Each structure stands twice: as structure tokens, then as C-alpha cells.
């Protein structure tokens, strides 16, 4: 296990959630669940985050915000959609301004279902996200090595 998986920093964004999932996300950090045991930090800074935790469906007004937050995160990065709203639009999917799940705007790696998603399943989702993060990091390093050897050959 490399250090990437030992310190996943999370950026939490509420797209247009009913706040149910947000409360459950914060519950993960309370003494009962204490996600910081695994090195998880709930950071508000996209430039320092590894995992983008998005709750609620994406709407017309904030699609740009979601995309920008995603773009500001440095690689390797993973997106975890928390709650059925973030997965598919959920109960709000037929509203006039709702685009649908988070995957309508950014690539989602892990879907955590539930309304609201339980803290246990959120932590499970983060752990799955960490595995994906690890894969992406390994791929990134492989690419770096490739380009370096290509560079030395030319």
C-alpha cells in the first residue's frame, strides 16, 4: 500500500442535495465513525484534494462550478457520487433545472447508493475510491517512466 492510499483528502461539494447526504458525510468525521483514522481529511481546497465527494443532483446553475472544482484537482483524482441524487438525479431527476447525476458533467468512479447514504456505505465508497486512486497513481507513474525512457532514447 503506497502513501496515496494512506492519506486520501476529500473535497466535499453539495451540488443540489436536500442536505440529508451532507449530514451523513459530516457524520463520517464524528467520533463514532472517525474517518480520520484512515488519514482522511475533509479539506475545502480542490488543489489539495484527492477524492471529490459530490452529493445531490447537478443542476443548470452549478454544472460549471462542479466542472471547475474537478478541473482544479491535481491528478490522480477520483470522484465519488454519494446518495442516489448524485448517482442518477434521484427524487429530483424530473425537475425542470436538474441535469441528472454527477456523471452528466464529470466522470464518476464510485457510486454510493442510498437516500440518504449511510455513513458506513460512504466510508465504504471512500475505500473503494482509494483503490481506484491507487490504480490511477500507478498508471501515472508508469506513464512518467515511459515518457522518461522515450526521452532518453531520442
Amino acid at each position: 500500500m503506497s502513501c496515496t492510499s494512506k492519506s486520501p483528502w476529500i473535497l466535499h461539494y453539495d451540488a443540489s442535495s436536500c442536505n440529508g447526504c451532507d449530514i451523513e458525510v459530516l457524520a463520517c468525521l464524528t467520533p463514532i465513525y472517525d474517518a480520520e483514522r484512515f488519514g482522511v481529511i475533509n479539506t475545502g481546497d480542490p488543489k489539495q484534494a484527492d477524492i471529490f465527494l459530490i452529493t445531490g443532483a447537478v443542476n443548470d446553475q452549478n454544472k460549471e462550478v462542479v466542472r471547475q472544482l474537478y478541473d482544479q484537482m491535481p491528478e490522480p483524482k477520483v470522484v465519488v457520487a454519494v446518495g442516489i441524487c448524485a448517482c442518477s438525479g434521484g427524487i429530483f431527476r424530473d425537475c425542470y433545472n436538474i441535469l441528472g447525476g454527477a456523471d452528466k458533467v464529470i466522470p464518476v468512479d464510485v457510486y454510493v447508493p442510498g437516500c440518504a447514504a449511510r455513513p458506513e456505505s460512504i466510508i465504504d465508497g471512500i475505500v473503494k475510491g482509494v483503490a481506484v486512486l491507487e490504480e490511477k497513481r500507478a498508471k501515472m507513474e508508469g506513464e512518467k517512466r515511459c515518457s522518461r525512457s522515450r526521452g532518453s532514447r531520442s
Partner: protein
Amino acid sequence: MSNWTLLLFAVIFVALAPVAGCILAGIDRKISARMQGRQGPPVMQPLYDVRKLLAKERRTSNRVQDFYVACYLFWIVVTGAMFFAGMDLLLIVFTLTLGETFLVLAAYCSGSPFAQVGAQREIYVAMAYEPMILIMAVAYYLFTGGEDGGSFAVRDIAGFGDMAILPMLGIFLGFLFILTMKLRKSPFDLSMSHHAHQDIVRGVATEFSGRTYAMMEVSHWYENIMLLGMVALFFQNGEWTGVVIGAVVAVLAYILEIWIDNGFARMKWQTALKSGWIVSLVLGMGNIIALLVIA
């Protein structure tokens, strides 16, 4: 003590301070978590964080920012090495400020308004603690003899023979007060809070990512160890007992800071500035006057 021994101390500082600082930061997070009824991350968590940051994609808003943060790290290391090599305390205070200035510049040169506000607040906080540090240097000079044979050099202060703590008690208490600002602990963490989900996100460090952010963390490790060294300096009597007492008190001081950090809400910069200056004036200048009267 010979020059070679002092040089050795400086080299030991450069080599071991990050290790000690990393463990200290880990213990800090562990104790904080326990105070909040949580289990907390492993003690080596800060090391995992920094290694992860180094593995991240390199992305920076401009190249100059990286250069400034590198300068910050460099000057903090130089300051610490000078302190442990027993050099002039005044010079140490000024190089420390120089390092600080580079951090502020790094924050200013990025376009983020959060970083700008953070930089502004960092300057206010520096204004609040700087007088106390200077007063401390002057008090050491008076303590070691003032006009007849007084010295600003850390090696002379440490080898003076008497502990400075009793005649300089006011200075010590004042230094403990501004230590909260220097360590960027709540209630004075207004320029850069520990976690980035507060009013100005991560303040000064908002635009730092990956390698740049890792550099800043390592600088903090160096800086914290040097500051604890300054706490220990009050207890040096030229023998090993002084070193032991100094180390114990430094650790206790750090635990006190963790407790303060967890127990207080953040204050406004006005309060920080006022309280910093009042403490410097009352405890610092009062102590200086007492030293002059005794002499």
C-alpha cells in the same frame, strides 16, 4: 564549546529536525483527536501526507510561487541551523522574519483572493508577535551582563551558567503567548487554519498543491522544532541538567499549545494584534525594566 561541536549541532538539526517535527505533528494530531473523543490517525500520518503530496501531479498557478516557497523552506532551515550553532539571536530573529516574508510573498503572487486575505492576516499576526521576539533578544543581552560583557549569541546565553527562566519569567510567559501565533494554533490561526474548510479556505496555502504544499509542511516541521528550541533556551545552565529540563518544558509547552488549540475559537486579527502588543508591553517591557533595575 568548540566551533566544530556547534557546527555538528547545526548539521544534526538539519538532518533530524524533520524527523522530530514530523513525529511531533503526528502526536499533535493524535492528541487533538483524543481530546475530541476520536481515535485519530497514526502518528506517522504527516509523513504519509507529505509523501502523497510529492507523488501528485505538479501544478502551480505560477512558477514564482514555487520559488518563494522554496526560499521560505531554505531560510527556515538556515535560521534553525544558526540557532543550534549558537549564533547571534538578533540575526536569527531577522532571518526568521525573512523566511516568513517569503511565505507571504508566495501567497500574494497567486491570484486567489483567499490567499491574498491570508497573506494580509499573516502580516498582521507577524506584527503582533515580532515585538515580543525582539524584546526577548534584548532581555537575553541584559541578562548576560548588559553593557559590561552582555551577548546576543545563543552559545553565550546557553553557556552563561545561570538559568534565564527566573529573571526572565515575564519574557518566558510572553513568549509562550506568541508561540500560539508562531505555531498557527487557534485562537490565532487566522492566516491559515489547520483544516481548509473555514472562512478563507486554506488562507496563505490555498494555491499550494502537491510538491509546493509538501515543502511548506516540511518547513513547518523545521520551524516548530526551532521554536521549541527557543523555549528550551530559557532553561540552559551550561550543563546537561539544563538540556533535560529545557526539553521537558518544551514538550509540556507544546502540549499546552495543543490544549489551547482545541479549547479556543478563532479571534479576529484586531484582537490578535492588540493582545500581542499588550502582552509584549506589559510582560516584555516590564521584565526589561526589572532586569535594568536589578542590574
